[in-house]
């Protein structure tokens, strides 16, 4: 057993060291350049610093005000992307990172809606987020 195991580990190490690179365009590319630095490639976030998207982000769509919050939260609203690209990233993130919580009949964001929402500054971000999390019933989201 030892040899195949060692070979598998070696192959994995060599594959990683080679730094194989995937081609990206559209929403995955925009996510990588504008969001993944903090929320990370897998949407896992960083406990204590950056909220996770994976397994949680679509829950916001299930409570009043949540849909608006996702487009107004500063990291989204201020992303260096135009309205159409931003709507594309939002829809992609929801489907990619939290399909299980996507409500039935979810209507995708479009450029007009995102353009309107991102121009309404969210001043009390923490307060609004806290109230939404309470409505969702998951006060202990990290961070």
């Amino acid at each position, binding site marked *: 057993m030892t040899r195949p195991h060692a070979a598998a580990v070696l192959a994995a*190490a060599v594959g990683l060291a*080679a730094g194989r690179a995937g081609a990206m365009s559209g929403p995955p590319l925009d996510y990588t350049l504008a969001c993944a630095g903090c929320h990370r490639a897998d949407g896992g976030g960083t406990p204590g610093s950056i909220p996770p998207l994976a397994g949680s982000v679509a829950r916001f769509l299930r409570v009043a005000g949540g849909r608006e919050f996702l487009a107004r939260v500063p990291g989204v609203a201020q992303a260096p992307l135009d309205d159409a690209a931003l709507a594309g990233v939002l829809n992609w993130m929801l489907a990619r990172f939290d399909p299980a919580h996507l409500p039935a009949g979810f209507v995708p964001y479009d450029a007009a809606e995102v353009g309107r929402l991102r121009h309404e500054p969210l001043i009390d971000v923490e307060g609004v987020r806290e109230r939404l999390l309470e409505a969702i019933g998951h006060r202990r989201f990290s961070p």
Partner: protein
Amino acid sequence: MTANRPWIDRLVEGAARQLARRTSRRGMLARLGAALVGAAALPLLPVARAATEDPRMPPPDDSKLEGAVGDPTSCAYWRHCAIDGFLCACCGGSQNACPPGTEMSPVTWIGTCRHPGDGRDYIISYNDCCGQSLCLRCRCTRTEGEKPVYFTSRNNDLLWCFGTKSRAVHCSVAIVLGVATRS
């Protein structure tokens, strides 16, 4: 003669012979090799997490690059087009890996650099290596595609030791995450 040797000598000889009878040298070497390779893979795990599920492509070929643009210890290395910090390749690490004793920050800033060989725009993640004082070797500051500090996610003046045990920054790596196909 055996009886005349000191007791510790006999004890060690007995233990050594018993060990030799019970164990296989090849087995030990194989296990040791597996452990070493496994240990070598560990520092690369943050890179694995940063990788995507998109179709795999060959990595950019640096072997034909001449001079500083192909040298990871040079500020002019192509991946460093927007780095700000000390190059880990000069600090006991490499362009991909943190030096021993430091921890790679999972939070990072990401941009693109054009490869001078194939002309493609590669997505580069500038991760800080944290947990030791400043390396102070190979200082490098370049700003292609960098944004002012109010775009925090695209600014390289910040220290990026978030989510790490220590906030002390040592050096910075430049990891290729993929290739951007948008023109």
